[in-house]
């Protein structure tokens, strides 16, 4: 039986238009055999959670470079959990100061990837941490 493909939503919340990273990640995950849905720019946390539910994804990769991560990321996690997506991983990539990382993790973010991370590391993280579907 073929292994089920990991499904990932790549999301750009907030007003920031810097989508170079999001698009590179989307393409790299796709090249690694995952199913990738990219939300496009300027999605509210509500839109992102709704898309995650509708697409039934295993993980949401949030790309954010504007400094609004402390406001937006916990809200995305909260909305996913409210919708019963308890196993859905939330990964954050972008410009995030070190001291914010611990707080984001306490708030339910699975991992924060800083500039300079290789796409391989992200792929490996997803493969190791996405919970197999039952």
């Amino acid at each position: 039986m073929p292994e089920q493909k990991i499904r990932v939503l790549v999301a750009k919340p907030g007003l920031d238009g810097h989508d170079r990273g999001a698009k590179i990640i989307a393409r790299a995950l796709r090249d690694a055999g995952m199913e990738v849905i990219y939300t496009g720019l300027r999605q509210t946390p509500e839109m992102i959670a709704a898309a995650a539910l509708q697409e039934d994804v295993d993980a949401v990769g949030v790309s954010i470079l504007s400094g609004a991560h402390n406001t937006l990321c916990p809200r995305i996690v909260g909305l996913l959990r409210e919708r019963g997506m308890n196993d859905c991983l939330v990964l954050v990539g972008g410009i995030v100061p070190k001291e914010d990382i611990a707080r984001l993790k306490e708030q339910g973010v699975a991992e924060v990837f800083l500039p300079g991370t290789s796409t391989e590391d992200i792929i490996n993280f997803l493969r190791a941490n996405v919970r197999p579907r039952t």
Partner: protein
Amino acid sequence: MSEIKELSTPAEAAVERWEQETLAPVLRQRPERREKFETVSLDSVERLYTPADIADIDFARDTTFPGEFPYTRGIHPTGYRGKLWTMRQFAGYGTPEETNARFKYLLEHGQNGLSVAYDLPTLMGYDADSLLSEGEVGKCGVAVSSLADMEVLFDGIPLEQVTVSQTINAPASVLLAMYLVVAEKQGANFNKISGTLQNDILKEYIAQKEWIYPIRPAMKLVVDTFEFCTKHVPKYNPISVSGYHIREAGATALQELAFTLRDGIEYVQWGMDAGLDVDEFVPRISFFFNAHNDFFEEIAKYRAARRIWAHAMRERFNAKNPHTLQLRFHTQTAGVSLTVQQPLNNIVRVAIQALAGVLGGTQSLHTDSYDEALALPTDQAALIALRTQQIIAEETGVVNTIDPLGGSYFIEALTKKMEDGALDYFNKIDSLGGMVAAVEKGFPQREIQDSAYQYQKAVERGAQTIVGVNKYVMEDEQGKIDILKIDEAARERQVTRLQQTKARRDNGAVANALEKLKRAAVDNENTMPATIEAVRAYATLGEICDALRDVYGLYEEPAF
């Protein structure tokens, strides 16, 4: 077999002799470190450049003298001996009060021009109290929602004397109006006001993605500012055609050059189609380029840019005024090249990139701060960045002669290669129907995305070294560096001022002004006079943009 072997020129014969007699024995003993050497834009960089590589360059036609067509060696006959570049550090964060203080700090330390960074809500045309602004107010720049904020931002800064560059695009006409009204309140004479509005909407659709309206009405707003400034603020640069963001989004140096200049040509075409005189408005069009790591390629890019522009203006538009032909540009070092890892290394990267900008003849320069991959810069980091420019200007001696690399076989050959490559892109874009049409078809966007992905893959397989990231990595980086924290209360303070402004103003006057603006937009008239009237009445940025959103609608990005 009837193959005809061309005879070598004496220059080529000399190279062949060297290759056989001197080089070959050494290569037999020890091969080179790599089979192929390349830059981001060029497939291969030769081992050695000689007169044979510049045989097709005619000094009298292509290179010439500074201040003479096609300006390859610079637009000023005295280079930096006459006047140094303007040291213009981009700054802005939090509230207008905080940014005003940073501006004064930079001016006190020898900076001679200002450059405003606006926050994302301002860039997108939303007020601080908009739902969409949550978490974003004052984060990436200063928050400005109305004239009241602009008055604070430039408090105590005489706009007749200090030139100010504003990085604002989709709502640029509104911020220009606010700037002019503040200047007017200071008693400034519009004829003396200088400065630059970024106002380059094409590169937003191509790379930076901070758009509001669909492309064609957005281009019309740009042309409105050209027309208005030509008539009323003659020393002001109403646009800075920007390759910076195109590069940051992943373009190669060649793509940056080609797309930026082709954008420039598109604006000139639109201006002329609106009835403007090429030799009247084009002299106020300025450019903005990136300074990235590949040192010589960057220098060649700037030299090629001047030559391409001069030819394009003369040949496509029959321009006669020398100022129309002269490409002036601002440079900023590559934010995207900065690393979180071992951040002090960034000081060195910035210095080398800045040197490339200077050797390329930039008119003004921003050097990034070493902490920018972490957050907005602290005072200390911003000061080192400024000092970097001062060291280049006043210690290294590179400013003593004009275009010091001109005549280098390598630089001249690279300049030609960049020029040829850009002209190939021009042909492609012309065949798509021009830049607006090419953007609507997603052409430059796709080219850039492909380059960005290729670059990332090159980094990951180690073909492209990034010191501290994929080589010379330190697992346990010690050393904590201070970073600038943006006060989360910035939004509350901005919302309070917004409410006070709305309570004090004449709401009838605001409604009338907004109605007039809509009418101007519907009737395809110049929107600047109505925008200024609305700003004067303290209509907010969000209200003014909403009025135009009603008329023009919103841009929707083509699917990825």
